[in-house]
């Protein structure tokens, strides 16, 4: 897909090591953009069972903006349901059949294919998203699962708790592209790779931060291979633990907990999933550095993680199984004070309480101790077998 002139540009821009992810908008990225003036890259952006929140999130990107990314990389969006000028057949006809980048937003209903359709089949019936995805993904150079639904099934895959209407636990059989919750496969098989050789790049989040998408595109189009964790998420975005960078962390360490959202204190007891959730939003902040969920007193709901919804449900109650090593959270908080006094510091405390890992073993802080349930998924086992390697291939 990368033409000759683009290769030259990549050489110019290619000062980063393979495996790196452009995680910040830098002057280097800016100048790389400026030189990317040759050749059009075709993008197809599909929506499955989506709320369009990921598209709206991307519109909030500032460094770079969505329009800069599209314009300066000369990305031609051949299909995007919300933004494109065309409609109907003309819209379908303009869609690239072998896109450079295929983006999916929203999950794919596999048990009830008619629950998300787009356009018509030759016989005049509605064409299910699952067909679109299985046709287009193998033809794409890069495939991006944008948001928790497209990556892991997300919201539509949340449990039908009362087993209503004989439609099963997963109402429509909603799956992500290569995962269903924390398990493989999704719609595509575990061995699926796009033309670039990469699996589906998952950008979890409900919604994901716009930078995650726009900088991931910058990374791959700069010719770098992003280092992915075991859920195929780019590591720099999904390695930090929310809990580590939370503004209320000091309250946790002192054992001072809020009674309700909005109160002063650590929000752990009102359901905060921060100790189990990985993203760098605490430092990156949202909406041009404005704020982040925890900064306004709203507990983290774990939206960046596979299994989001039921893994942290009920969202308003203390995440269970914090007691991994027999230390309840209040004791742990108090222990942290003591530990601080004797100079052991927060890392030791975290080990005590089992909130993620801190020893840089490369698993993105996703050790079993950090998981609020003890089930070991396929992906988990694979990861374990690889002694810290995160990629699933």
């Amino acid at each position: 897909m990368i033409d000759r002139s683009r290769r030259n540009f990549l050489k110019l821009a290619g000062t980063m090591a393979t495996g790196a992810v452009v995680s910040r908008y830098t002057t280097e990225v800016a100048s790389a953009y400026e030189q990317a003036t040759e050749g059009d890259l075709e993008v197809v952006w599909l929506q499955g069972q989506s709320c369009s929140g990921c598209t709206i999130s991307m519109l909030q990107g500032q460094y770079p903006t969505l329009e800069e990314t599209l314009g300066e990389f000369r990305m031609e969006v051949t299909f995007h349901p919300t933004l494109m000028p065309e409609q109907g057949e003309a819209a379908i006809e303009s869609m690239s059949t072998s896109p450079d980048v295929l983006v999916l937003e929203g999950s794919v209903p596999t048990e009830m294919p008619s629950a998300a359709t787009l356009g018509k089949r030759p016989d005049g019936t509605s064409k299910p998203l699952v067909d679109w995805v299985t046709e287009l993904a193998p033809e794409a150079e890069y495939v991006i699962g944008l948001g928790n639904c497209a990556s892991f099934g997300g919201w539509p895959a949340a449990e039908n708790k009362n087993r209503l209407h004989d439609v099963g636990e997963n109402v429509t059989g909603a799956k992500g592209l290569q995962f269903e919750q924390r398990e493989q496969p999704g719609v595509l098989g575990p061995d699926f790779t796009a033309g670039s050789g990469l699996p589906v790049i998952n950008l979890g989040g409900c919604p994901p931060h716009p930078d995650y998408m726009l900088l991931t595109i910058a990374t791959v189009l700069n010719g770098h291979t992003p280092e992915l964790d075991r859920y195929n998420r780019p590591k720099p975005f999904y390695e930090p633990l929310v809990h580590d960078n939370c503004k209320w962390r000091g309250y946790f360490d002192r054992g001072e907990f809020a009674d309700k959202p909005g109160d002063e204190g650590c929000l752990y007891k009102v359901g905060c999933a921060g100790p189990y959730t990985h993203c760098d939003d605490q430092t990156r902040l949202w909406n041009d550095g404005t704020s982040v969920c925890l900064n306004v007193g709203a507990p983290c709901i774990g939206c960046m993680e596979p299994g989001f919804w039921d893994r942290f449900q009920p969202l308003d109650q203390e995440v269970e199984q914090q007691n991994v090593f027999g230390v309840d959270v209040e004791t742990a908080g108090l222990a942290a004070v003591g530990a601080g006094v004797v100079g052991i510091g927060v890392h030791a405390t975290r080990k005590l309480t089992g909130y993620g890992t801190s020893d840089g073993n490369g698993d993105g802080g996703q050790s079993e101790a950090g998981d609020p349930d003890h089930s070991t998924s396929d992906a988990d086992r694979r990861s374990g077998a690889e002694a810290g390697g995160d990629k699933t291939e």
Partner: protein
Amino acid sequence: MVEISIDPTTRIEGHHGMELEVEEGRITEARSTMKMFRGAEIITVGRSPRDAAQLTGKVCGVCFICHRIGSSRATEDAAMNAGAFDGVPEHAKILRDATEGIFFLWNHAIHLFALVGPDYSDAVADTGFDRLDPLEGDGYLGALENQRKLMQALAEFGGRAPHPLAFVPGGVATNPDAATVETVKSRVREVSNWLGPTEAVPDVLENVQNGAFDPDLGEGLHDIVSILVAAAQEGAADLGSGPNRYYSNGLFRDPDSGDRIFKRGVYRDGSAEPMTKEEIVEGIAEDTEYSYYTDDSAGSPTEAKPPEPDPEKDGAYSWGKAPRFEGETMEVGPLARLAISGYDPFDLRATLGGGPAESNTLNRLVARAQEALIVRDRVLGLLDAFDPSAPLMADFPDDYTGTGVGLWEPSRGTLSHYVDVEGGTIERYQIITPTLWNIGPRDGEGNPSIIEGAIVGDEVADIEDPIDVMRTIRSFDPCLACSVHVDSPEGSYETVLEPASPGGMTDVGDD
């Protein structure tokens, strides 16, 4: 007869298609098809009422704040009816209104500039008006920049946008200080300056007609008025006519008087009828004759057997249900609000659109533009009235048994959430969205939905490019994510319906 299928309809939110039959250049039959189902209510049942706001708040990433507030109001109403909750603090109500107002501005900007505006741009319709060419025009790009500022303002209170987490049952879980409020105001003012002064509308109208552009009178205003003028010239006033029946839940309570800026009630037979919450709730029923839900799922959202998905149902063509008010279709949205409240700033609908309460494609755009100015002028007042040092959260109970209804009025029109809670667990849940009112399917009596009726009778000049149909569809600002899972099962359990406590179902009780 020619059959036209438009799938996807694009530049709306969600999956939608339109099936048309055309005879002698005129549309004789229209079927509006919602093409996605997720099962939001099925998923919501069995969970904590607090989680309802988290979960249903995410049914739509465009209308994110509206559903969180609508759901919170339903569970709060249920808790109040159960005698377990005293209500939301006054300044949380003001903050919800102010935030919804900022959301209105954001949504109207996105709709006018990025979704419907391009229909009148040079790129799409050879109008010579290239400022709204998608992703290229200066007006389009300017709107993208300004919508980001409004989202920043929303994130100051909500933590992030879209999908802010701070709006929860019991109030608003945020602790803004005076500086935060000032920052929000300055963001809104920046966008306000881009938009331009309300009183400049007549001058801008003249500018646009003379091909002049005066940024001092507002770049945004010039572009919006350009859309309206282009739409008028393209004959939009003669397109998409509706039955002139409107419904609104009302919004923007004046903190001093308690009156709403936008009134609650309906407009029919040429006059507005103010209504209480109880009258509104009693008037609503849903029909599933042409929906992919079982036939015995129809009825009042507070009582009827909840709908059960039936994807193979004969004759069905939409994942949406057909809500009706006292048996009739009702148009909802900016035009409905302004018609019910009697507002027509600068007589734009009277002079351009054939009358202030005339339902047509042009008037829907005009009303949205007028409303953007009305709300802009209102938001700063609400922020002035908001005291960040006042309590914003009340204790919300975990364990209660009761039923509740949350009426809310997002930018696209009326929204209602219905919940039955049994011992702290949701036993039944239902949502009726604005888009269902406007673009759902026909009902068992054969009455077409608002959009289906609006399109029938219109001419199609070019069946290869039915742009006027698209203009009419987009004039409703349809948003389908939330509309296609309107399914509220109650399963095999038995729910005890608690009678509403005095005041609980009235206009006064929970607003």
